[in-house]
């Protein structure tokens, strides 16, 4: 599968450690254009101002959660088709269902490995 690895990726998590881990894993699977946001509000501002091809977001954040961010992205005419992967510890079925209903592109449960991350990104960008 041919994937554009130069795509701009926005990673969103309120744990600095997690941002660092995801950034390093993305680097190892050859995604180098990575930007970070520490909550949904920050992420939405960056998405509206920038040119991103993929969002990878946690769910459990304040003041705007990952689900609210996803809902805002899908409501925005400019962002509504943006691939959006939720990487989160929120693994109850109700969470997955809510994310799907809100238009999530894929869903990864923490803890995850690089192979899962790579597979989901390829699937999402391949379908984009």
């Amino acid at each position, binding site marked *: 599968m041919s994937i554009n690895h130069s795509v701009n990726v926005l990673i969103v998590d309120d744990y600095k450690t*997690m941002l660092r881990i995801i950034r390093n894993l993305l680097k190892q699977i050859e995604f180098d254009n990575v930007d970070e946001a520490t909550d949904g509000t920050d992420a939405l501002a960056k998405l509206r101002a920038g040119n991103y091809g993929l969002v990878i977001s946690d769910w*459990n954040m304040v003041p705007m959660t990952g689900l609210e961010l996803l809902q805002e992205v899908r409501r925005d005419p400019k962002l509504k088709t943006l691939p959006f992967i939720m990487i989160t510890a929120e693994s109850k079925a109700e969470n997955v269902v809510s994310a799907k209903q809100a238009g999530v592109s894929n869903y990864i449960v923490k803890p995850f490995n690089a192979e899962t991350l790579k597979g989901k990104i390829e699937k999402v960008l391949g379908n984009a």
Partner: protein
Amino acid sequence: MLEVSDLPKRLLDLGRHYPDAKSDIVAEVVVSILSSMSGDLSSREAALLHEIGSLGQAVATTRLEIAALGVDDITVSYIPCANDELDAIVAHTASATESILEVCETLDALGSAMDGVAARQLQDATMKIYEACSFQDITGQRITKVVHTLKTIETTIARIVQTFAPVTGALEPVVRAPDVSLLNGPQLPATAMDQSDIDALLASFD
């Protein structure tokens, strides 16, 4: 001779006399009324008096039990102490994880200057360390849940103690936003959905 029909009047008089009446005063009133009662009572009145007596006894017993528990130790000392310990765990694991990631990034930089099998092995090893470091995020979320539980226990104890003081008004119920109510946090391994469960659930929508 005091009759049962005098009870409301007597309680009102006492209420006027003791506007800040506490539960122990109420218990005293009950004992006082019971000890001064005599004459023929209907079975319904006798049952009512028995209930009042039991209630007074229950109040007194609960007060003794709460005193024996040392609730001040729990709310003033034990729970805040436990919260501090948990905060320290989060801070220490975060700091240790940062150190591990720094070393890992150094190894990565070294690996990128190398070629061949050794370089690939080094890259695989650092990838596994990055993956493992996500433990800090998961344990952090679990500890946050425990801290919330402790705070709930603290609030519950405060409510129990408060029932023995004059009521100043009902506590407002906590209203959570619909999305916030979905914040379940990490599940325990025995009950958690794994990635394949989630993939299957997502696929069921297609």
